[in-house]
């Protein structure tokens, strides 16, 4: 059962091939057996999952207006608040935090009748590209447990790659859906900013964060998007736009599709083997009727520097609420108010989170605001304008998701910038608010490579269509790691 896609499981439940309880037990059993190796879950919700599976089975038996995902197991990244279930953001700061409310995304899946297996591991507060910053320990990449699964949604991606869940929610601030999807050989979509509600999704950088799905196929992503995308009056930045049926156009032909290939994404920083795999994928799309066009996104090289001002600046304020007063970690025996703050935050946050808070505070502080924060926001506009111009010529922009396949734990050394540069191709879409996807397109040394698809604003359905057509013609998305039980 664990080899099946979300779409197949939905069909299996509909035909009565198996019940949701059976399905849920199967996945819970796999998690129990295999996850001690991968560490992809922070919290497994066995009892709740079985209870909702039972009620999903009842609902299916009654046959009334059953949602396609009713009874289908999924997982939530531990950044989405779940009422009554610990939501840690992989931080010691929130190790004891049990939200009294649900994220809108969580509510949406609840309404669909999906079964939640548990909360997946991630980089602490979604800050990282390797899942090494989790307070609950790193997640292992099922393709090679000596390598990282990517981050920050590494737990979600690894769990899907190891077939511990067919799909998961995730979030992407600078590549946190696409990069782990690429490194774990699965599919992931970061929607347009404002498409998925951020209510109840613990903020890292509010103007960049966007929730989206991880799954094995584009079709499954479409099914997930049908649930995740919604207008939410509680999120001021969420757009009041009609939610299309993302599965409706999957089978459309992509003949005539104009694909832009940015030269900046094939620079000297790109691993040559990865480059070749991506080029092969582009040729495959050409055979499906698409045309390739050289384009330029001239400000691409500034996206990482701009991001490492804007994201830390927003994070430095977003994470001020973690002060040991109303919830979460509080240091022992605070001597006075200052001590309460200084020690709670020093002890509750990990090194990378603290580093970004300090960087953010620096970029906003008196005398540096113009040179850093304001400058970065100007560059951000230039980056967006690059894309706007490009989309006047092409329908979609394709390239590699990351410069390298999965790397080994600890291999990035002491300099945090080495890690930051792993997101060089994904960050600019967050700055511009554009949707981006990663789908598997090959292997290098038996490590998966991701093909990145960047679409125009709110073109997710079309992107899914392109990805689905590619997956109909190839089998990379069906490849799975050896030794996953």
């Amino acid at each position, binding site marked *: 059962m664990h080899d099946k896609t979300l779409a197949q499981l939905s069909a299996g439940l509909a035909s009565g091939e198996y019940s949701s309880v059976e399905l849920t037990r199967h996945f819970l059993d796999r998690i129990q057996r295999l996850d001690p190796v991968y560490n992809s879950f922070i919290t497994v919700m066995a009892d709740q999952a079985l209870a909702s599976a039972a009620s999903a089975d009842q609902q299916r038996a009654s046959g009334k207006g059953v949602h396609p995902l009713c009874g289908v197991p999924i997982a939530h990244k531990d950044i989405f608040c779940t009422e009554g279930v610990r939501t840690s953001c992989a931080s010691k700061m929130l190790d004891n935090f049990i939200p009294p409310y649900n994220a809108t995304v969580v509510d949406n899946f609840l309404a669909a009748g999906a079964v939640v297996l548990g909360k997946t591991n991630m980089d602490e507060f979604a800050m990282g590209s390797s899942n090494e910053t989790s307070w609950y320990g790193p997640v292992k990449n099922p393709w090679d447990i000596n390598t990282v699964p990517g981050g920050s949604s590494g737990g979600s991606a690894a769990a899907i790659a190891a077939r511990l869940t067919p799909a998961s929610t995730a979030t992407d601030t600078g590549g946190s859906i696409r990069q782990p999807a690429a490194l774990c050989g699965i599919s992931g979509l970061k929607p347009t900013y404002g498409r998925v509600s951020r209510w109840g999704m613990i903020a890292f950088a509010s103007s960049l964060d966007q929730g989206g799905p991880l799954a094995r196929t584009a079709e499954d992503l479409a099914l997930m998007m049908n649930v995740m995308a919604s207008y939410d009056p509680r999120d001021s*930045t969420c757009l009041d736009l009609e939610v299309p049926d993302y599965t409706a156009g999957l089978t459309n032909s992509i003949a005539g599709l104009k694909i832009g290939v940015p030269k900046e994404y094939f620079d000297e920083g790109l691993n040559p083997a990865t480059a070749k795999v991506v080029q092969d994928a582009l040729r495959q799309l050409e055979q499906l009727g698409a045309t390739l066009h050289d384009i330029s996104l001239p400000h691409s090289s500034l996206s990482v520097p701009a991001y490492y001002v804007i994201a830390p600046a927003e994070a430095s304020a977003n994470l001020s609420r973690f*002060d040991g007063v109303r919830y979460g970690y509080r240091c022992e025996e605070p001597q006075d108010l200052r001590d309460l703050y200084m020690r709670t935050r020093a002890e509750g946050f990990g090194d990378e989170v603290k580093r970004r808070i300090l960087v953010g*505070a620096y970029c906003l502080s008196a005398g540096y605001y113009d040179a850093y924060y304001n400058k970065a926001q100007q560059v951000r506009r230039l980056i967006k304008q690059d894309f706007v111009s490009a989309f006047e010529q092409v329908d979609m922009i394709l390239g590699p998701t990351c410069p390298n396949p999965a790397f080994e734990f600890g291999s990035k050394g002491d300099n945090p910038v080495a890690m930051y540069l792993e997101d060089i191709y994904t960050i600019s879409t967050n700055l511009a608010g554009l949707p981006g996807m990663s789908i598997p397109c090959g292997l290098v040394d038996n490590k998966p490579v991701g093909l990145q698809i960047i679409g125009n604003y709110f073109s997710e359905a079309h992107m899914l269509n392109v990805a689905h057509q590619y997956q109909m013609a190839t089998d990379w998305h069906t490849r799975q790691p050896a030794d996953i039980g």
Partner: protein
Amino acid sequence: MSWETVIGLEVHVQLATKTKIFSGSSTAFGAAPNTQASAVDLAMPGTLPVANEQAFRYAIMFGLAIDAEIGKTSVFERKNYFYPDLPKGYQTTQLAKPIVGPGHVDIQLKDGSHKRVRIHHAHLEEDAGKSLHEDFHGMSGIDLNRAGTPLIEIVSEPDMRNAEEAVAFAKKLHSIVTSLGICDGNMSQGSMRFDVNISVRKKGDEKLGTRTETKNLNSFKFMEEAIALEVERQIDVIEDGGKILQETRLYNADTKTARSMRSKEEANDYRYFPCPDLLPVVIDDATIEQLRSTLPELPDARHKRFVEQYGLSDYDAGVLGDDATMAHYFEAATKVCGDAKLAANWIMGELSARLNGEDKTIGDSPVSAVQLGQMILRIKDNTISNKMAKEVLQGVWTGEGDPDTVIEKRGLKQVSDSGAIEALVADVLAANSAQVDNYRSADDSKRPKMIGFFVGQIMKASKGQANPQQVNEILLKKLNELI
């Protein structure tokens, strides 16, 4: 050496919205601690703000009232600092693009002169919670009910030169916001709080002196006291060869002293930046025009109207017209009794004296405007005398009922039956023949003074209920007959 004082005000005005600026929590005053603090107000992880439309409407109304330019695009920013009454660790406020741009407020001083105080801008922001310092085993308690209450912060230019001007300005702002109905004006509950920036300089100097900020004054009286104290302190320091430190000061109204609150050594660096959770707020012309056309009457216009419509003196129009609640009271009482002059006299005289005596404002008056009007009606139709009216007022004040009920209960009806009064006069004259003889033999010029005695006796005999005017008339007639 002659010194000049320079004063600017920052005024926090709590807006009279039903809910908070960024959440649907109630803003009602006096609820049990933290029962009006929602997940958003508590800055629970993942929660997000959505701005309150009414807060914007109120802020725009204020802008229109002070003739200011309205910020068609206003932007919320985050002001970062840690404090337990500030759950997010930043205050959501406006800085570069406030909702209200430069405007002005005109004030009238005691000598009758007028002065214009410029407003630098006014912006929308959220209020903080409260720290309670009662001893919880050496801890403080935090109540976040107030956190997120919408405020406009009105920032004046340093245009005031003494405490009188500052207080007149503060009172005028109070009058404007209560007239607009955008604030309940309840100073003791903190609905309006004043921060006063004060500096002194030698007369004739162009350059401003170093200023201090005295924070959170919540009464006009305290403001006046605090300014006097701070001006004196600054002059003393400078004359002793010292320097004024830029600092925040706290005035203690009980001890009439002030102290430095936070030294600016640990200079705050608030790291303002646009709040990414909130988008720019765009106000269209139609909204502004709609609000302009429905703007309630403002204090200056009302003042003028009171002079013209009711024939009040400039002074009376000021007392009755500057405060919105007072103005409504006056007009409601006048409507009932049809006599603006009498209503004005009673409100500014007897009623105000009683209110002041119990430290009440007109809004808390136990005697409603309608009741006062009814009482005045009874004076006008001769049911009661002015003297009786004071007794009636006393009865209504203490809750004995409406004026007519009190008149009835206390048996205060005036005797206006001329037959009855003639009989009383006759009795008194008969019983006091010696005084009548004196009257008769007295000089014309001395007689008016002697009448008081007879009137007193007659009123006494009537137990105070005879109509004094009729008593006078009949008495004179009778005495004249005797001459």
